């Protein structure tokens, strides 16, 4: 399935468009997407930091996603590095 991943914070440095689309074989869990995202980052983005990804979580628009959860049916997720608001 096609998954559109919105990039925030330091991940924006990886792609100025602010999102990336990846294809993951179904049935796909969040952990599968994480592996695909890491492979994509290592292959395409000089600024990609695996350590940042390890400290990041995936989320839908309404909630954080656990690693063993299925990906949202609408195929839209965000990858959230450690937060620093306020």
């Amino acid at each position, binding site marked *: 399935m096609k998954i559109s991943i*919105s990039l*925030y*914070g*330091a991940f*924006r*440095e990886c792609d100025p468009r602010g999102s990336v689309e990846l294809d993951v074989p179904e049935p796909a869990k969040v952990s599968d997407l994480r592996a695909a995202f890491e492979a994509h980052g290592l292959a395409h983005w000089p600024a990609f930091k695996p350590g940042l990804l390890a*400290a*990041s*979580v995936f*989320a*839908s*628009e*309404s*909630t*954080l*996603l*656990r*690693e063993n959860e299925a990906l949202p049916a609408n195929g839209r997720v*965000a990858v*959230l*590095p*450690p*937060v*620093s*608001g*306020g």
Partner: protein
Amino acid sequence: MSEVECLIVDIAQARLDASAALEFVSDPGFGGITMFVGRVRDLNHGRSVLGVSYDMFDPLALKVFERACAEAAALVGPRIRTYVAHAKGRLAVGDLAVVVAAGTPHRDEAFRACRTLIEVVKHQAPIWKQEHYVDGDSVWSEGCSLCAAPDPGHTHSHEH
């Protein structure tokens, strides 16, 4: 009975408004209002700051703001009004980045509720800060890692 206002303010269009926060959390039955205002500092970790860009995942950020308000109400009870607003975009030194406020019957509740609001916003809201330095460099702040199943009562006590 708990009334809540949560806002994301695009700095290109408007500014955060501390007076509006006070107004919103006021009630004839409330004797205490505590407000916290976070502003962009001119110096961070010893580096001279020109400004800060805030990036935000808006829909989830608003949900976290609402959860912050719910946690404050859970802490002090239903007689509370809470307000959370965070700026996004490029801010200059001195600009307001965040305004949170709680109105309650008594002051101890207002302080505890207000502290809960800002701690949840700081540690759980999907917001990222990029500092722009006088020397031309820009750095995304290291932050607080989110976890997929946050304990609702969990708030870090460290500063960042």
